[in-house]
């Protein structure tokens, strides 16, 4: 199959470039975050190498998602959605239990987490439904869209995996806001959501309540659950303007910082590269998000636009929640920072979704 030259011409090269820069910065940071282990002669897996391998696989996945015209996704949306739901049911009956949660399907060669797939298929189905809505959503339409989203979300929360379940709802919620709702719906939600939020307290597990309490007063238990929050703030803050330099971070090198290669990876970055480094990284993330807004704006059709908006929210929430947590603005929630935190399947999914928006951007001038 000969590739249309215009396709290559219209690819959003800026997004590709940003993705690569962010990914490489992440790998570099991981090298620092796990470097001491190697010097020590202890045989702990070198995370940065693994992350590189996953990144290469991710790029293959990205290409795979770029090549076929994304309009095929429109026809595949519902079948994919129901297939995902089936897998979630399968997890419920035949899933593998790790650490008390049933989240995995054993595929023989690897463990597969259907909740990851659920985020993607939610995004695609959401784009399909919303692109057909002619008016801003009224209560009936809103109930329908949210109802669809609740099917996989509820099943994921039951696993239990509150984080992923809420992610699904947040992605869908973001897309709904992008579509727009009627003035009445908007006003009602403005009142109802803050009013109902405290009720959710009663549905939280004890450890989740503990995290929220610790967030409100980390000094109360500086060696226990407040440890993460305090140490990550010390790490970032002590970087000051220019940072301590690559591989020079005392907080991370001396192991005061917990989870430093996964959820708290940006704390290592902040300590070693300082305010100058974190501002550049923050700017890159924002520019990266802005490029997806551009793609959503320029998309050839509404479906493509909503797809881009969905992917936008997929990344937006992760960045907001992860950085909010590490910077001490939010309770500790186990959500990684895209491209910076270590994580194999997350990296793979990230690249695939970038591939999907690139697909939208490169076909913006093609007619059906």
């Amino acid at each position: 199959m000969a590739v249309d030259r215009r396709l290559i011409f219209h690819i959003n090269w800026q997004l590709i470039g940003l993705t690569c820069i962010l990914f490489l910065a992440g790998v570099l940071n991981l090298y620092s975050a796990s470097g001491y282990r190697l010097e020590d002669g202890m045989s702990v897996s070198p995370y940065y190498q693994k992350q590189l391998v996953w990144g290469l696989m991710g790029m293959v996945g990205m290409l795979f998602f770029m090549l076929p015209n994304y309009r095929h996704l429109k026809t595949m949306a519902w079948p994919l959605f129901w297939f995902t739901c089936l897998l979630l049911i399968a997890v419920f009956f035949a899933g593998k239990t790790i650490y008390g949660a049933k989240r995995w399907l054993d595929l023989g060669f690897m463990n597969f987490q259907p909740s990851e797939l659920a985020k993607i298929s939610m995004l695609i189905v959401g784009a399909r439904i919303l692109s057909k809505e002619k008016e801003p959503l009224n209560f009936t339409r809103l109930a329908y869209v949210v109802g669809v989203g609740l099917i996989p979300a509820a099943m994921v929360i039951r696993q239990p995996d509150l984080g992923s379940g809420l992610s699904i709802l947040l992605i869908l919620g973001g897309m709904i806001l992008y579509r727009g709702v009627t003035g009445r719906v908007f006003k009602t939600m403005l009142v109802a959501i803050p009013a109902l939020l405290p009720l959710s307290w009663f549905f939280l597990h004890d450890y989740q309540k503990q995290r929220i309490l610790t967030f409100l007063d980390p000094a109360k238990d500086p060696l226990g659950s407040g440890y993460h929050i305090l140490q990550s703030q010390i790490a970032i803050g002590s970087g000051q303007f220019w940072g301590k330099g690559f591989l020079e971070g005392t907080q991370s090198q001396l192991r005061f910082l917990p989870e430093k290669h996964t959820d708290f990876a940006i704390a290592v970055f902040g300590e070693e590269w300082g305010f100058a480094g974190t501002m550049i990284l923050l700017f890159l993330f924002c520019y990266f998000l802005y490029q997806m807004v551009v793609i959503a704006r320029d998309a050839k059709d509404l479906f493509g636009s909503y797809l881009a908006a969905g992917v936008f929210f997929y990344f937006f929430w992760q960045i907001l929640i992860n950085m909010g947590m590490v910077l001490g603005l939010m309770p500790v929630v186990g959500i990684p920072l895209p491209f910076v935190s270590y994580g194999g399947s997350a990296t793979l999914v990230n690249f695939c979704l970038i591939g999907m928006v690139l697909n939208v951007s490169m076909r913006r001038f093609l007619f059906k």
Partner: protein
Amino acid sequence: MTRLTSQSEQQPPRQGLILLQLLVLGLFCLFALRLWYLQIHRGEDFALKARENQLRQEAIFAPRGLIRDRDGELLAVNEPAYALGLVREDCRDIAGTLVQVSQWTGVPLETLRETYAKRRLRVKPFEPLILIPDLTFEQMTVFEANKLDWPGLEIRIHPRRKYIHGELMAHVLGYVAEANEAEMKKIPELALGDDVGKLGLELMLEERLRGDKGLMQYEVDVNGRRLDARILQQPRAGYEAVLSIDLGLQSLIMDWLKDEAGSVVVMDADTGHLLALVSSPSFDSNSFTAGLSPEQWAQLRDNPKHPMQNRPIQSAYPPGSVFKQVVAGAGLANDMLDPEETVNCTGAMKLGNHVFRCWRWRYGGHGKTDLEKALTESCDVYFYKLGKRLGVDRISEYAKACGFGERTGIMLPHERSGIIPTREWKRRTRGERWQGGDDLNLSIGQGFTLVTPLQVARFVASVINGGRLLKPELLKDRKATVQRMLPSKPQDLQLLREGYINTVDAPRGTARRLRTKGVVVGGKTGTAQVVRLTDELRDLEDDEIPYKYRDHAWMAAFAEKGERKYAIVAMIEHGLHGSSGAGPVVKAAIEYLFNGKILKKKE
């Protein structure tokens, strides 16, 4: 038109696009502000904290103050002990390590897991968490040979208290053991794993013995290796305590009491210093320091002779005839007793339809008896009559003025005050009126009255030192503290003192066995009934009476030569008779004190 509509339908929602852009802008502003706050505004604070993290500080143990006897003989010292610690951060497999430690040391895995779970909240991840406070030499060897395979385990040296005469001094010194939660809360200087005084002088002098910990600061490299250790503050050793106890005397007395339950107090009558404070049976202080096993504890707890009881201050007994000097003192102080006046003792006295016997009733009593004879031969009838005349109010008031019924204030924990009954006391505790018979019992030291051996020693000392009631002291450098003066005229005290002396010197005196050449010795025997003897028990030979029904034996004595005056009180539980039961050990103490002789107990 149609085309336009369809195109506008194909247009992405304008407001949505604005929303997305605002979200990106908001995200940027929010985190830019927060990063500015953390890294610029508070950057220096956090840099300081990071530096503190990197620089680790460690306490240096201060040696606990040594304890010596009056001649400088060491009683309590510190020696190094080897503890096994676990540094969580360096340990790859904590569960597995615990299993291995359990195999090496024989400590049950459950116990180790419990220790670990309890302490992990209080110990930082890079600090050693003490799993085993005390490794034996064999365990150390095994560990040293294998330590390369078990990163995270390390041996920590810390000082441990050692009592050179663990059993001899246990009731005086007490012991130290690892501080518990409550103690750590109360004393902020204590850290997890520190020892703290739990009993005896170790407890009462805790603050002074402890000393001040030093502080060491060191930098750690990437691997946690220490660099640049620097001492910020030198540790200061604790106060060295020199006791008034004479180790030789203490151990001589302990030998005499070997198979008995009882106590002996030897007090310098001028200063209140205690030269011996013996409680038998005893326990070994060292067994607590190393951590008592449940079996050892059960053994101590279930021993019928209660080795943990510090008898001279914690056991209150009926004083028996030892109390007669007090009753005589009360009579003299109230001007209701003429020493010349005689009473005819026929061996018993009738009150209502109850007969109160004298101990010599079998031999027809003491006959005509004045105060001197009554004290020397311990005539009960004489004191029944005196007691009846005085009544409980006067006797109790005087006894309290002599320090009975209250704690002596000795520097040891859990002292008991004993009981001096009053009308009010009987109404409150028994719900009964005070009866005439109670007066009679009180006057010979039976009935409700309970006194501790230390109280008796303090009273005897005050009789021979001019009426000064002294606080008993255990530390050599403490000056005498006069708590109050006995409410008796000097000539009355002289009469009481002569009563003691005659009891030793007179041909029919009950304490004749104390006579010592060249030493003025006085004494009063006492036989305290444990149960009201039935006639069948009364007729038995001494060694046929079951141990627990045998009378307690008292000997309250003093000995003086020139400036040196000592009050010596022995109390032997179930020792049968004052003179034969409690006398010999007092005699041995006198020989030791004045002639430097060591009298061995005859087997």
